[in-house]
């Protein structure tokens, strides 16, 4: 008795294999789509803005004339902003992570804190802008300042830093802690001298990646009311300022096409900054991260 007809099976098999090949091509094309878009975007921005990148572009303030427009105040403003965001967000983020990983007991309060952090991560950045405008700019009366914007940005990237630090702390093996306890160290001594040093590479990598998100974030700055045309650089933290993404936003909105080229040049500066930060993060991860 014949159960299977060889011809039927092989013809069916053939169509199934063709289908597999076809879809493999389709999935590959979809994967390539993202890569191609990124390539087009980068090439486009470099060809458009490359001509504007010169010494004057870094030394000039904003201007009505595209060929005289520069990025000085925005670049320095962004650096100032990072000088506030980095310590504030890392202090809060790492502190929260230590609490959650080392101290928090499994109770309702701590579960609530965890759920809250993951929900906070999903709040649109423009809503953080509204928070900053109301609480920091008006209620705390910080004005449209580096400090107000820095606090707002710190809260925005806080969930990212918390989660990254939690992972880094969790990756420190229990044996290290137990060895420390066995030597008579207290809990806090163990955390400061054993756990944190071991977790530093992971914490730094996550924090730098989060900061690179903050440096490109525009919406909260817009909502707070950061000006775009500024003819001076800030002197202290309560001064008003402008930042790279704000300046790019302003140039992009202008109807003159020449300003679009200036915006592209600004984007080159911003993206270069991002690439540098990301490279540092990857470098730290590869060089110092120990696998236990």
């Amino acid at each position, binding site marked *: 008795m014949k159960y299977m007809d060889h011809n039927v099976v092989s013809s069916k098999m053939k169509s*199934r*294999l063709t*289908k*597999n090949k076809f879809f*493999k091509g*389709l*999935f590959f094309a*979809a*994967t390539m*789509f*993202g*890569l191609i*878009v*990124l390539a*087009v*975007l980068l090439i*486009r921005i470099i060809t458009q803005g490359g001509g504007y990148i010169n010494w004057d572009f870094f030394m000039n303030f904003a201007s009505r004339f595209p060929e005289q427009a520069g990025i000085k105040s925005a670049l320095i403003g962004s650096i100032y902003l990072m000088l506030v965001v980095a310590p504030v967000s890392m202090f*809060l983020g790492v502190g*929260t992570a*230590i*609490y959650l990983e080392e*101290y928090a007991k499994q109770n309702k309060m701590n579960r609530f*804190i965890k759920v809250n*952090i*993951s*929900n*906070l991560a*999903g*709040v*649109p950045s*423009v*809503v953080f*802008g*509204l*928070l900053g405008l*109301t*609480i920091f700019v008006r209620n705390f009366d910080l004005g449209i300042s580096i400090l107000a914007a820095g606090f707002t940005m710190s*809260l925005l990237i*806080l*969930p990212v830093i918390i989660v990254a630090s939690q992972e880094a702390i969790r990756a420190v093996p229990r044996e290290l802690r137990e060895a420390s306890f066995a030597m008579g160290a*207290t*809990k*806090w001594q163990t955390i400061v001298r054993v756990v944190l040093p071991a977790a530093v590479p992971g914490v730094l990598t996550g924090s730098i990646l989060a900061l*690179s998100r903050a440096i*490109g*974030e*525009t*919406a909260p700055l*817009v*909502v707070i*009311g950061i000006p775009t045309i500024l003819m001076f650089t800030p002197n202290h933290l309560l001064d008003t300022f402008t930042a790279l993404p704000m300046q790019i*936003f302003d140039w*992009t909105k202008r109807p003159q096409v020449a300003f*679009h080229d200036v915006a*592209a040049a600004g*984007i080159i500066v*911003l*993206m270069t900054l*991002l690439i540098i930060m*990301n490279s540092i993060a990857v470098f730290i991860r590869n060089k110092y991260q120990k696998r236990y």
Partner: protein
Amino acid sequence: MSTKDSNKSISVQEMIAQKSNRGLLSRIEKLVPKILFAIAAMSVLTTIGIVLTLIFETIIFFTRVSPLEFIFGTEWYPFANTTPAYGILPLIVGTLKITGIAVLVAVPIGIATAIFLSEYASERTRRFIKPILEVLAGVPTIVYGFFALTFVTPVLQSIFPQLSIFNALSPGIVVGIMIIPMIASLSEDAMTSVPNAMREGAYALGSTRLEVALKVVLPAATSGIVASTVLAISRAIGETMIVSVAAGSTPGFNWDITGSIQTMTAYIVQVTTGDAGYGTTIYYSIYAVGFTLFLFTLVMNLLAQYISKRFREEY
């Protein structure tokens, strides 16, 4: 004498206990958890701050504009001099247009990318492609906005001449591109966590790679894929700069995607970049819009959490 001696001599444990009960060290040990708890409470305070800010300012808005008009009104003309109208539906429709287009672009491409990376790609290809997707995810949204306005829109205009400079199609597509990495990487995580034994079982029965991917891996990873899509939708709803730059500022209660529109986020940006003074109805309206936006994204985030918890397949 001997009783005195035994009174004086104490065990090592007691010595440690005595020593650590005194002094700075034990005070630090007791203080630290409290300080750390206060720091951890900051994230909760942030949420409370957001919610209270939005609620208080929205209430002031509702003393001037009836909530019914706000929720059901189909006209949004806050800048009209004589009879301003505050019906949020046009802004919601604008947001939905962008989100809809973005989902149509990102879900097929994102899931296809995830299938390729998890089922077809070699380890080397994966190591090459995943960092590039991470770069794509790290591009600031203002850069995407610039790209939408100065590149995607002109390209689309050469295909559809009736398209205006500001439209829903181009920023919708670019928001889609922005959320592709999110869907791709979260879906891939869901797919790689499907145990290999299931794949091998299917291969042993003579399945092709495609059949394994579509009939074994995809169903097993559904909850993760759906959750990633819902999260991505939430991101698209809250996306601000791309739509502010490229979608225009004309709220309309229609389904046209070729003309200028306005989303909830873009309205907030329009008001805060303009010169509406503090205390005006327009000023308070951004909080009402922000509150609506917040509720939309909150529901989406909770839904994503629910899906990934409730429907997760445990192996």
